[in-house]
């Protein structure tokens, strides 16, 4: 029997696979979803710059047939700003894990959202630091066990979408890896948006979050955990604050147009 070749493989840098993601990791899915979104939109990867910092998700752009910046933790948005201000016509997409986006790069996230920097930031949130071996992240749900919270996390978690919204992001949505078609649609909307778009995708990490926090390395257990705790924006409207604690609210939070960032000192400031 001949092996099925994924049609998206032509988008892979030098056709080089396999990727380095663990079996069952959501990053492989996100890579696939992204390429489907690119094809459906008729975008050309060769026109684009893709950016990854450090971490598992940061490896996604390493596989893409784009120009790519990679390998420094948390600085994806400053890179994007350098490129977008000098070459505004180049589409820039960022792949960041929750550590990259919300922990070490949190300050950059706030200010890129505030400025409405014209980039698409895909945040794959697997609820822990995975590449380094499963340490607590700002997104780890309270009381869960990780390698650095052996008695359960004593930190309340951080909602990346809420932070982006509060800082002024003009497009924010959240999905999960188990919702394929919805996630592809969310990525497409993020890519089409002019201005700062943040697409958060809650993802399974069976190797670390699954094993330490949920007691199982099976991907389906991790996916079920995410699904069981996911509610739509419509459902969330009828829930109390207590009921929403520990839940992932899924959907599009904002989609609006504002002037995009063109530098701190510009001759003509738009009203």
């Amino acid at each position: 029997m001949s092996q099925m070749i994924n049609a998206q493989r032509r988008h892979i840098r030098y056709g080089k696979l396999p990727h380095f993601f663990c079996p069952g990791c959501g990053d492989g899915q996100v890579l696939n979803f992204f390429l489907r979104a690119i094809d459906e939109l008729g975008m050309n990867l060769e026109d684009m710059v893709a950016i990854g910092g450090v971490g598992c998700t940061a490896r996604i752009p390493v596989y893409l047939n784009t120009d790519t910046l990679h390998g420094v933790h948390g600085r994806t948005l400053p890179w994007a700003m350098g490129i977008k201000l000098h070459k505004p016509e180049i589409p820039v997409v960022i792949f960041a894990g929750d550590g990259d986006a919300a922990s070490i790069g949190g300050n950059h996230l706030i200010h890129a959202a505030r400025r409405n920097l014209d980039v698409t930031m895909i945040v794959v949130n697997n609820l822990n630091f995975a590449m380094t071996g499963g340490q607590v992240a700002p997104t780890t749900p309270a009381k869960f066990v990780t390698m650095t919270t052996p008695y359960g996390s004593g930190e309340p978690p951080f909602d990346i979408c809420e932070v982006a919204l509060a800082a002024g992001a003009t497009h924010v949505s959240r999905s999960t890896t188990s919702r394929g078609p919805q996630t592809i649609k969310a990525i497409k909307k993020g890519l089409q948006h002019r201005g700062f778009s943040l697409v958060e995708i809650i993802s399974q990490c069976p190797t670390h979050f699954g094993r330490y926090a949920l007691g199982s390395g099976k991907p389906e257990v991790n996916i079920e955990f995410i699904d069981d705790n996911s509610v739509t924006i419509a459902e969330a409207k009828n829930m109390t604050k207590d009921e929403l604690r520990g839940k992932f609210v899924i959907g599009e939070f904002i989609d609006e147009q504002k002037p995009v960032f063109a530098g701190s000192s510009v001759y003509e400031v738009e009203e």
Partner: protein
Amino acid sequence: MTADGQRQNSRVLSGVHFMLGNYATVEGALAAGCDFFAGYPITPANEISERMAERLPQVGGKFIQGEDELCSIYAIAAASLAGAKAMTATASAGYNYYQEGIEYAVAVEAPCVIVNVQRCRGENFATQADIMQMRWGAAGDHEMIVLAPSSVQELFDYTVRAFNLAEQFRNPVIVASETTIALMRERLEIPGADRIPVLNRKYTDLGPDKYKTFDAPENGVPDFSPLGKGYHGLYTINPHDIDGSIEWDPIVYEKLYKRITGKISENEHIISHTESFQLDDADIALVTYGSEVRPTLDAMELARNSGLKVGVLKLGTVWPVPETRIREVAKQMKAVITVEMSIGKYAGEVERVVAGRCVTARATKNRGIGHTAEEILEVIKGVRA
């Protein structure tokens, strides 16, 4: 209208000025083709950001005030990869934050210019205390090009040169400014634009199918490719092969950093720049850099007036160390004295290169103010005795 009475808004302000050092730095950058600046407020470097904010939009460039120094250093590295001639400026405490971005710019060979207006810890008094950090601050293997201007004129001239060296060698180049000269107003002559040599990076002639991002001759520099044109360059800090791929290979890694460091260390003769004053008949050489050149030249005159045969070797480039010239000078001297405004740092480099060819001594001062000529003369007399 710009500050200090200039009402022109062309890229090169040719003419004679009485200009603040920080402003001269900006004018040098613009004359060299700078079109991108990112910085974060810090004294005594603020006049650089402020003037860039005013001047860059006039010449079609982009100015950003980053949310922090990390934003600034990474924005200029990425803008450089996108084709910009990019600069940032800070002062000592801010320079600390730049190290990780410098490490990245070294690894992906992004040309950029970094101005460090050295100041005392927590205060805006004069010092040269960061001379070693500018060489060694970033993690990993690297060589650094660091220029040490001694006047407002040289802040202009050396900033032009910094851009040219950055473009030529695809490496960050540091302008080691100091409170002393940055906040000083002095005569500045800006030549006509046609008399300012400006170098630009070389872009590849190859198409995307044949081009490899980091393919370069031994100790050489790879050609650039434009972003977003199908060259699928991978600019990663991770160890990378000439095509950018990041599978670990100890031989590839060693070869990469042999070239990245070799392109500078093996070209010391092209990069390094010194000036000699009355060394021909001297038996004592004063070796110095930056603002300390100024009292050192006065000390030479005082010494000559009292019959001492003293000359000065001024180091315009502090890194790479102008070893060839220091060695030549040391051979002809009875003593070499390093003059610097710190607890004594670069003196160790000078003494390493002199390597016993003659006596060495140090004139060091770390009190937030440069030497006086008389203080240096005392050290000369001490060595003489």
